[in-house]
């Protein structure tokens, strides 16, 4: 107990050096004073008494030293002193300190951030257990087209599952959209029917309440529903009292029994409701086909599962030959691969780039430390001469390096946290990033980056100490101050600079290529004007009395009222979200022999769609209002259609047969239409692919059905949302607008988000790399120049030209840059090929990009060389000579 007390007090005293020292001094003085009094009492003079007292006492300093050792921990006091000294030294050279810390911070945070993203998005995007064994099954035909799957009729998939041993368990889901009559008006919810084992399958516990099980799926069980976290926040404000409340969906009441935690987004539902595994067991379940996912049994590979399924499928195909194409195969794909697909390539590229950045950063710091080392050799030699032990000097340098590293690491960790937040906002969910993904800092990577950075800092920070103890101390204080070791150091530093330049080139070229791709992508003419357009779905509740006519009238009224809203320029109705979401159909054109695989996109719309989207008519005309109202058999085709299927013939007036329409659940008899107009192509396959043939038909042909509302406004489209909702409520209070979004945002999310993301991230790294390189070059040259100050001064004093000196320095620097350039370009030729998957319309060896990057680095090099050169010649010769 008392030993603990002693230890604590010793610890405390280590930080109270001043006070303890003063007290000791007073105590010893008092002691000496008493001794002196005693000697005076014995008859000595005051002066003699004082001396006698001192002799009698013994060595004052030795006594004090002993007391100092006993009263605190010396190593702690030394450490404190070292830290103080280190801080002061670092503060004296603020530029170096800040640059070094910033460099370390950048390297560490960049690696950590991007690896965290990689881990969260690619490696572990789902919170579900066993997600590495989660698979989708699809059936493909001989041309590799997807025939069926992941949606299968329940009894078919259950047959596969029972016969195959590859699957551990299976979950089936189907999506539905239901109208919810809530307190705040009508809203459409995405409802997912899920087999009762679903929550077990996914292995996630509910946050509130409970999830459903097999008993809830029985035919006469009360209807229960589990809510998604996001929907719960959005529609119920996160109120825990939601349990037990009723949701009236499409007229039926469901009781909410649970809420899932965040990140659980299976099938991106607002609400999950139980459905029997086999719909024959429960007539309530909506559809016969379900999307099926399965877990592979441990140890079973996807390939094995495929083999099993092919065998079983063959057996079933004998009984149901119509359901299988003549040649088919099963494909089992891991869901992770399915979702992440080629985003993986993006992230791995970025990780490669970022690792380069860390290396560059460490090179920079190393260089800076080496430069400092040489400058401080003198100081260290003097300290050794005065009596500092080798270990003491090494310790002090270690402390300094540690302080530097600590500063860099703290800044790096902070930047990493900030960067993660920022990046999480930028990431495009749904585009290779699963909805369940949450970007979090990956701690092991932070630790790794910290270790790497710290190791390089310590390693290079110790250099001067190692140098000084190896060489003769006297040589260090030599006036000349330069030895072979110094030259070796310069070579090492020059090598580092060359490496930095090379790596920077690789980064810059990569970023440059991505930039070209992005610019080209963005420059693609969409074929329509996406600005100021609002798109929203309109869906009707399933009403028995809704006839096509009645619905048509409702649509007409909605369109008319919407058009009258102030700020609205034009309103149209269409299916899908143009330019996406169209159906495909085979084609026949009487009088023209078409290959059997001829097909076109089919879109149903009102007469003002082209006007609303800003698509011009190339020939002929659009629909008229009467034609839409009365569902005339007229069609508008696009340019691609005309060119591919009509060739040189004039399409106007010709008839086209859209075969698929005759086979729809509510078939359209004799689906022949007369072409009345040709519209310009839009990028209906995205900006990277050429447009496919497309045909527009009046939407009234497909009523009753749900269509989307497309509205062009004068300014911000979202501001029209509330007035539009009001107008729709007036026409029919049970019709709701769902998922409103601006066309611009939709385009951005689907076309550019991923490319933009890559570009942004890589661009940041490339710029940082270039900055670091500039600093690196500058550092080396500044040091070289400072070492040659004497020579330069003499040269100038003897009448040399400053221009000549500048050229000398610059030439040295540019040699390094040139070497780095050549190496970097060589490496790039090899590595740029890796970027191919992300480039579009740009060759990996694009000469323009190469030229720009080379010029950029050359310019940076020249500037970074010129500044120290200029400073060198401005130094007064006499001052320079005296400086030694």
């Amino acid at each position, binding site marked *: 107990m*008392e030993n603990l007390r002693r230890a604590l*007090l010793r610890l405390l005293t280590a930080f109270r050096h001043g006070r303890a020292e003063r007290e000791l001094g*007073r*105590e010893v003085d008092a*002691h000496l004073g*008493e*001794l002196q009094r005693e000697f005076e009492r014995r008859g000595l003079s005051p002066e003699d008494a004082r001396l006698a007292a001192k002799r009698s006492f013994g060595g004052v300093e030795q*006594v004090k030293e002993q007391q100092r050792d006993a*009263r605190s921990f010396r190593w702690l006091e030394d450490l404190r002193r070292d830290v103080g000294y280190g801080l002061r030294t670092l503060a004296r050279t603020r530029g170096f300190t800040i640059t070094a810390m910033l460099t370390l911070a950048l390297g560490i945070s960049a690696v950590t951030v991007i690896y965290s993203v990689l881990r969260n998005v690619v490696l572990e995007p789902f919170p579900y257990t066993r997600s590495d064994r989660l698979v989708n099954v699809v059936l493909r035909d001989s041309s590799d087209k997807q025939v069926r799957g992941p949606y299968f009729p329940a009894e078919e998939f259950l047959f596969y599952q029972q016969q195959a041993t590859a699957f551990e368990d299976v979950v089936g889901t189907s999506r539905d959209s239901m109208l919810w009559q809530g307190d705040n008006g009508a809203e459409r919810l995405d409802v997912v029917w899920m087999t009762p084992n679903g929550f077990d399958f996914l292995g996630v516990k509910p946050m509130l309440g409970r999830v459903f099980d097999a008993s809830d799926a029985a035919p006469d069980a009360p209807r229960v529903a589990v809510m998604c976290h996001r929907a719960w926040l959005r529609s119920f404000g996160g109120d825990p009292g939601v349990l037990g409340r009723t949701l009236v969906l499409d007229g039926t009441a469901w009781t909410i029994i649970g809420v899932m935690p965040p990140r659980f987004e299976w099938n991106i539902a607002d609400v999950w409701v139980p459905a029997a595994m086999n719909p024959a067991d429960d007539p309530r379940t909506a559809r016969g086909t379900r999307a099926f996912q399965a877990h592979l049994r441990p140890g079973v590979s996807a390939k094995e599962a495929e083999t099993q399924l092919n065998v079983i499928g063959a057996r079933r195909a004998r009984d149901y030959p119509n359901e299988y194409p003549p040649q088919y195969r099963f494909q089992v794909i891991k869901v992770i691969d399915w979702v992440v697909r080629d985003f993986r390539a993006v992230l791995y590229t970025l990780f490669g780039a970022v690792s380069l950045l860390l290396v560059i950063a460490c090179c920079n710091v190393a260089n800076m430390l080496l430069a400092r080392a040489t400058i401080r050799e003198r100081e260290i030699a003097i300290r050794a001469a005065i009596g500092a032990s080798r270990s003491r000097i090494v310790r002090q340098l270690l402390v300094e390096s540690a302080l530097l590293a600590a500063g860099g690491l703290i800044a790096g960790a902070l930047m990493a946290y900030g960067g993660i937040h920022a990046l999480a906002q930028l990431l495009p969910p749904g585009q290779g990033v699963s909805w369940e993904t949450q970007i979090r800092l990956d701690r092991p990577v932070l630790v790794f980056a910290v270790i790497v950075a710290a190791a390089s800092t310590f390693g290079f920070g110790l250099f001067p100490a190692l140098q000084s103890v190896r060489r003769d101390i006297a040589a260090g204080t030599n006036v000349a101050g330069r030895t072979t070791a110094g030259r070796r150091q310069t070579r090492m530093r020059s090598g580092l600079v060359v490496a930095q330049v090379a790596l920077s080139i690789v980064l810059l070229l990569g970023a440059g290529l991505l930039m070209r791709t992005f610019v080209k992508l963005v420059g693609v003419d969409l074929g329509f004007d996406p600005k100021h357009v609002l798109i929203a779905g309109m869906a009707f509740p399933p009403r028995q009395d809704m006839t096509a006519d009645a619905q048509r009238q409702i649509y007409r009224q909605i369109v008319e009222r919407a058009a009258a809203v102030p700020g609205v320029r034009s309103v149209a109705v269409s299916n899908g979200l143009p330019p996406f979401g169209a159906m495909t159909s085979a084609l026949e054109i009487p009088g023209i022999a078409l290959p059997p695989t001829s097909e076109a996109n089919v879109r149903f719309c009102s007469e003002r769609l082209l006007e609303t989207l800003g698509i011009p008519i190339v020939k002929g005309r659009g629909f008229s209002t009467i034609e839409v109202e009365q569902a005339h058999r007229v069609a508008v085709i696009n340019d691609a259609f005309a060119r591919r299927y009509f060739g040189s013939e004039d399409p106007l007036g010709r008839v086209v047969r859209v075969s698929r329409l005759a086979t729809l659940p509510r078939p359209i008899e004799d689906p022949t239409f007369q072409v009345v107009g040709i519209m310009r192509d839009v990028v209906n396959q995205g900006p990277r692919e050429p447009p496919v043939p497309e045909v527009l038909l009046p939407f009234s042909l497909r009523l009753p059905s749900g269509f989307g509302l497309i509205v062009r406004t004068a300014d911000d489209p979202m501001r029209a949302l509330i007035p539009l909702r009001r107008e729709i409520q007036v026409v029919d209070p049970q019709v709701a607008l769902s998922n409103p979004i601006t066309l611009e945002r939709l385009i951005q999310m689907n076309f550019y988000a991923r490319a933009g993301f890559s570009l942004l991230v890589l661009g940041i790294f490339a710029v940082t790399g270039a900055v670091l390189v500039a600093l690196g070059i500058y550092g080396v040259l500044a040091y070289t120049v400072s070492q040659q100050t004497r020579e330069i001064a003499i040269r100038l004093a003897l009448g040399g030209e400053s221009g000549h000196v500048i050229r000398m320095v610059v030439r040295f620097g540019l040699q390094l840059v040139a070497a780095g350039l050549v190496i970097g370009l060589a490496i790039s030729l090899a590595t740029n090929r890796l970027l191919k998957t992300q480039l579009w319309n740009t060759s990996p060896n694009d000469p323009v990009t190469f030229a720009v990057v080379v010029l950029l680095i050359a310019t940076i090099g020249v500037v970074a060389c010129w500044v120290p050169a200029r400073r060198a010649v401005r130094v007064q010769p006499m001052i320079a000579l005296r400086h030694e």
Partner: protein
Amino acid sequence: MPSEDRARVELLQGTLDLIVLRALSTMGPQHAYGLAARLDQLADHPFPLNQGTLYVALVRLEHKGWIKGAWQTTEAGREAKYYSVTRPGARALDRQTERWQRLVGFVNKLLLHEP
């Protein structure tokens, strides 16, 4: 003979606590000089207690909480630090005394029974 002295000092460290505690408990509060003078007086021959060791012992005992130091004025009007035994110190003194006596008794017994 510095090495001899050193050996003796190390031997004493364990018992030095005992000596100082006992001295302070019988003499009452003392400053460093007073304590050193008294110990010198008591010893038969020059006591190899150098001041360094004494100061170390005082710091140690104070950190352990067995003695307490207070600044007071001496007769000469000087400020000095007076040490006194604390209650835990008194208990420690008893413990150490008992241990010493047991040790001494045991060693004496061994010495007496030498053939």
